[in-house]
């Protein structure tokens, strides 16, 4: 016996799904065959025992796959086992499962970046560790994300060209964060800015704002 396909005519071969279906059919087929074997030999044994008067005639019938008591418990057992395994597997792999930690030790998404006077006028200051640019134009401030919209590399500010450039796949953005070249599909994210009680600038990278949004001091 080679495998499932040897019991199927070659004309039934097709894509993988046909093959998987054949596998299933094969398993069911074997199951039925073993049932037949059971019925055959079970009946012969039962008949011998019936002849010897050990059991009554009506108890001999083994029933079908859905009605036989043994088959029912076999199926029920498998169903219970597989559903339990499935539940544990779900618990392991789902988004509340093992691979998804409940506590993160990551830098806060909301942070102070300094006093407005720390940022010279008409400059783009790179806050490398925070992955954010602070752009000052007169008395307005913008926080622009360093993360390229293509595949998440860090773009850098090119002072001589006056644009943001991505080293990975050549995306380019204007000073206002709008993409104009390369594979980037949309402008860089702009983040919410605020002023703290002691007059420092706050950037909140969990709050993405419209491109036109500026903090006016």
């Amino acid at each position, binding site marked *: 016996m*080679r*495998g499932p*396909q*040897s019991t199927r005519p*070659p004309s039934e*071969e097709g894509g*993988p799904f046909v*093959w998987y279906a054949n596998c299933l059919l094969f398993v069911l087929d074997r199951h039925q065959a073993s049932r037949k074997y059971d019925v055959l030999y079970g009946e012969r044994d039962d008949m011998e025992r019936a002849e010897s008067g050990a059991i009554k005639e009506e108890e001999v019938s083994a029933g079908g796959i859905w009605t036989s008591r043994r088959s029912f418990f076999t199926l029920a057992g498998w169903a219970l086992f597989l559903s339990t395994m499935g539940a544990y597997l779900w618990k392991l792999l789902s*988004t*509340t499962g093992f*691979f*998804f*930690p409940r506590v*993160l*030790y*990551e830098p806060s998404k909301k942070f102070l970046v300094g006093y407005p006077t720390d940022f010279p006028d008409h400059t783009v200051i790179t806050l490398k560790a925070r992955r954010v640019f602070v752009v000052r134009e007169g008395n307005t401030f913008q926080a622009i994300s360093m993360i390229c919209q293509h*595949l*998440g*590399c860090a773009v850098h500010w090119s002072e001589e060209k006056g644009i943001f450039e991505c080293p*990975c796949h050549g995306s380019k953005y204007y000073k206002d964060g709008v993409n104009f070249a390369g594979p980037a599909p949309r402008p860089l994210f702009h983040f919410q800015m605020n002023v703290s009680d002691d007059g420092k600038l706050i950037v909140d990278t969990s709050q993405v704002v419209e491109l036109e949004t500026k903090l006016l001091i």
Partner: protein
Amino acid sequence: MIPDLKKITDRITQNEIWRSIFRHGYEDTARNRVLQIISNIWLHIHPSTVKKDSVRLSYTFCLGGLTFFIFLFETLTGILLMFYYTPDVNRAYADMLDLSNNAVPFGKLLRNTHRWAGHAMVITVCFHMLRVFLTGSYKVPRQFNWVVGVVLLVLTLLLSFTGYLLPWDQLGYWAITVGTNMAGATPILGYQGPFADLFGFTIDNDIRFGLLGGTSIQAPALLRAYVWHCIALPSLAGALMMLHFWRIRKDGFSGRL
């Protein structure tokens, strides 16, 4: 006095210990030739009968065997590297430099051969699959083994990918950034992918998060890459290789009779 060589060899070989390990000698008899094949683990990987046509080197080019050899080589060098590498963000890069600068005896050889063999394994797997495809060896009754092989290809690529981050250098860091962002753009499962909003996937519960163990590449990502690379993926690949070889034995070689 000239020592009796026959007597000495008999003394070594004709005892229970030797006989329990080696079951046959070297006599060139039909029976012994068969014994030599079936009692050798490497030759035993072959089916009991191999078609004359498939024995030709140009039929298989030993590509599957080469891949397996490289896997064993990677396991060996990988275990040795693990003695000197710490999957910690403050140590990883320095440990890698120590290995590269021969602060460890044979460190440079170990690290470089491990890396090159990793590249080579991807190449031999691809050529192996090309050979199997061109000789039609994926057809009946070997479809299942082809599917196992495809899973092994994916595992090989994942082994390469997880190993990429371990030096904790710029190349690996950005490669993993790009790679996991691609995972983040998977439909439904990734937070940037289509239909993610519909199923409530955000940056802190999508598949990228599951891979990195966080929303950005930090210490958990390095540890995860390490555990996947050194334990989980090699174990999975090893188990599937056993299945793969066993199926070759059962299904036989393809080709003309």
